[in-house]
């Protein structure tokens, strides 16, 4: 599972995301001057020797490169940035707090100048001191390595343009000014960007020592700033994480962690990882329990099973630019032809929650939409009225279950309402690249989105703003282009604080796109499982919307 299952689509497109994000000041509920979180940095007194986990394969173990949950969930306790998320359960876990920074930044009135001060006496796990210039080095390292996250930072002065650091990769990024003696970091932006603080909390901005080679260091662990460090990592085999001997509770806003050591075995087969946890060989199963074993897990091991729904939306994109779905009645018919509960039950074993919203629940901008109902007869009628009946529809989806089964369902339902679907199932590695190419002319397709950071810009601007449609690597795969809504999204991006009124306006964007213009078919917020051995004390279970299962707070019976 990837942290963002559509990560391949980001490369290049994220540059546009950042470049076009004009929100000034700090977003996220106006935490501009918040001094940080309330998570206790001290040990909870529940430390224990070893946590054994069955884990999925991380893509990298290098903060400037990794982009999967498998890496993120482990490494968020290893490398840290200036800011990070509160280690608390529920929606409060989306709150930003200072990590390496002493406090939240001072931001200029126009939102283009951010000033941070590092905490005093910060050290890496090898004992060397953390310097302010390491932050700039880490950002520059990301560009040198062609990190998948560089697009996020394109609004920093000196990054974009023909002579920008992103192109030349020479000298320094002029918009990052550091002073090691004073421990200050100043970030200057080309234009205000509302989600910049969330971007600075991304793994790509995590701090590594100056001089760290600008090549993949996954198997040569980079010194850590967090409470843990990577002792060893063998791709496709496993990893060992141990306590950082020089941590000294230097980041009081994050927990120092309970396990002394984490031994991870990489097992990508969910049945095998499930069996290992059933037999107590491992304490935690990272993979979602397969549908086939879910009834057993629920009936026999319910006390060890936790089900969570993080910020994601599964939806069918329908191409608004070409027939038949450039016709609004045809789009409405397609929405009515889909029975979310049938997909959730049949394809996902019940692990999902039906939705008609594009934005997932939990966001302050979320207002539940209940605008249409599954009705095949009416859908057929609408197809007839639209004059598109009998047309061929090229349906695209990945060739692996459950996405494959979900795509087959879509094709089947389109056939039932009068179209002639033609199914194209592609390997995941090329899937999003293919449907993001206008030449493919995909008419209906499976897709999903997992948040990069908790802000509606990450959803509506990236995925449904008609001004962002591109020929290649198009994130707006349904070519959704409603001029009035585009205008509203562009206006909302410039608003500095997320007040209730602003949240209502984002909610209206959601409703307009889904219910008024029927642009897309959202059907599910997917749920997943955390499964534990009998050794684990479930009273310590903490799940956060950003950090997932917080293994640092786990404890044993």
């Amino acid at each position, binding site marked *: 599972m990837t942290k963002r299952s559509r990560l391949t689509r980001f490369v290049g497109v994220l540059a546009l995301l950042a470049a076009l994000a004009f929100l000034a000041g700090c977003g996220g509920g106006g935490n501009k001057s918040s001094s940080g979180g309330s998570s206790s940095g001290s040990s909870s007194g529940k430390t224990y020797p070893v946590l054994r986990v069955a884990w999925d394969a991380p893509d990298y173990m290098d903060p400037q490169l990794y982009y999967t949950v498998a890496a993120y969930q482990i490494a968020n306790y290893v490398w840290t940035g200036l800011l990070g998320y509160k280690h608390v359960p529920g929606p409060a876990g989306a709150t930003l707090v200072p990590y390496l920074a002493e406090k939240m930044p001072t931001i200029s009135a126009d939102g283009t100048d951010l000033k941070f001060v590092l905490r005093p006496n910060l050290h890496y796990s090898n004992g060397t001191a953390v310097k302010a210039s390491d932050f700039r080095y880490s950002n520059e390292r990301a560009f040198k390595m062609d990190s998948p996250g560089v697009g996020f930072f394109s609004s920093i002065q000196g990054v974009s343009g023909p002579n920008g650091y992103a192109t030349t990769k020479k000298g320094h990024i002029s918009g990052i000014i550091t002073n090691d003696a004073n421990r200050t970091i100043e970030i200057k932006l080309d234009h205000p960007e509302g989600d910049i603080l969330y971007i600075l909390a991304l793994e790509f901005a995590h701090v590594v020592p100056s001089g760290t080679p600008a090549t993949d260091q996954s198997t040569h662990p980079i010194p850590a700033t967090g409470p843990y460090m990577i002792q060893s990592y063998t791709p496709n085999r496993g990893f060992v994480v141990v306590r950082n001997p020089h941590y000294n509770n230097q980041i009081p806003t994050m927990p120092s962690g309970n396990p002394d050591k984490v031994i991870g075995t990489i097992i990508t087969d969910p049945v095998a990882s499930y069996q290992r946890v059933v037999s107590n060989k491992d304490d935690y199963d990272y993979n979602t329990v*397969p*549908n*086939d*074993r*879910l*009834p*057993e*897990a*629920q009936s026999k091991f319910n006390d060890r099973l936790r*089900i969570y729904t993080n910020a994601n939306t599964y939806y069918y994109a329908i191409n608004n630019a070409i027939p038949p779905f450039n016709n609004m009645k045809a789009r409405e018919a397609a929405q009515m032809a889909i*029975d979310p*509960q*049938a*997909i*959730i*039950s*049949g*394809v*996902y*074993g*019940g*692990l*999902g*929650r*039906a939705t008609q919203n594009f934005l997932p629940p939990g966001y302050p901008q979320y207002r539940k939409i209940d605008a249409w109902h*599954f009705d095949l007869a009416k859908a057929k009628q609408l197809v007839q009225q639209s004059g598109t009946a009998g047309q061929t529809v090229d349906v695209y989806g990945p*060739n692996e*279950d459950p996405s*494959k*089964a979900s795509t*087959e*369902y879509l*094709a*089947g*339902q389109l*056939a*039932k309402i009068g179209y002639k679907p*033609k*199914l*194209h*199932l*592609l390997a995941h590695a090329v899937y999003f690249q293919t449907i993001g190419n206008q030449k493919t002319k995909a008419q209906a397709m499976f897709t999903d989105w997992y948040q990069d950071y908790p802000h509606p810009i990450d959803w509506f601007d990236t995925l449904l703003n008609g001004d962002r449609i591109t020929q290649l690597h198009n994130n707006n795969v349904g070519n959704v282009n409603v001029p009035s809504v585009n205008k509203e999204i562009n206006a909302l991006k410039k608003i500095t604080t997320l007040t209730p009124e602003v949240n209502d306006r984002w909610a209206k964007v959601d409703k307009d796109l889904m219910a008024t213009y029927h642009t897309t078919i959202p059907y599910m917020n997917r*749920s997943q499982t955390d499964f534990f051995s009998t050794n684990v004390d479930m009273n310590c279970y903490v799940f956060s919307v950003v950090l997932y299962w917080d293994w640092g707070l786990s404890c044993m019976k």
Partner: protein
Amino acid sequence: MATDSTSDFTLDPAALLAAEEEGPIEGKSPWYLAWRRLRRNYVALGFLLLFVTILVLCLCAPLYANHVAHTGPNTGHLGETFTRDGKQVQVVSKGGFVNGQFHAGGIPVGPQLWHAGGRYVFGADNQGRDVAVRLLYGGLNSLAVGIGSAIICMFFAIVLALLSGYFGGATDWTISRFFDLIWAFPVLLLAIALGTALSINGFHHFGINIQSGSLWIPILVISFVLIPYVGRPLRGQILSLREKEFIEAATSQGASSWRVMFSELLPNIASSILVFFMLIIASNILTEAGLSFLGAGVQPPNASWGTMIADGEDRIATAPWLAIIPGIMIVLTVLSLNVFGDGLRDALDPRAKVRMDRR
């Protein structure tokens, strides 16, 4: 092992059959003699009957779908119910969150046999599709691929073997190297590579347009990769036959090369061709199942026995029939073809040792 009728003991039943020919054989055609031997091989005939039954059942798929099951092979019924003994039953069990409590679902209904009026006789799959209907349509596809690819493969293998064996020299060298080239690849890997590449974009070269998802793709891929496995042994036979006197006699009477090849040599390898044909159908059905299981053969939503096993793999604990039933069909079909093929070989030439090479 050549069996002498005067030897004391043999384990070769075909040799025994040949040795115990009923009645005079003088004046009887080889085909008549073969039929006489075959009709006494009840095991082979029994399995032929089994294969014909499977074939006929599969050919009846549209009738079964329209008049018994009342659903198509690709029609999903997720979220729907059906009547069993007067009660409504979910095709696929409901799951999800009710009042915050999670309930696991997604288990398709099991085999109903005749309790649901002909619906879901072998149960449903995870899309709510009728397994029995898909089994018959899947059988049609599997058999179409098996037989179709066998015909194409045999055609090219025979032509190449005749050219190679009769002309010899540079022609033989070129064709033999072509066989070697294909033979150098593990057959299944080569088939997977070709099947995967073609199933994405189809084939659009040399004026031939085959769309992705077409049944022609697995047919052509399988026939191509198996050509040397038939062509090589046939070439060997041609090489041997061309030295015989009757070929010399035909040549000396002025028969053209084509006439010698197709009027003299071809009839003399007809029995081998027939045996190969039966055995290679079985082999092709297995290859198709393997390719489809791996996603490189018959493409969804179309069914084949291989794709059905792949679909059932993830449900082996809760819905084992999804994988087991098509698996049984493959076993029965392949077994029937192999046993009948062996019987046919024994009947056509009890002393022959024509066998498919083990790959």
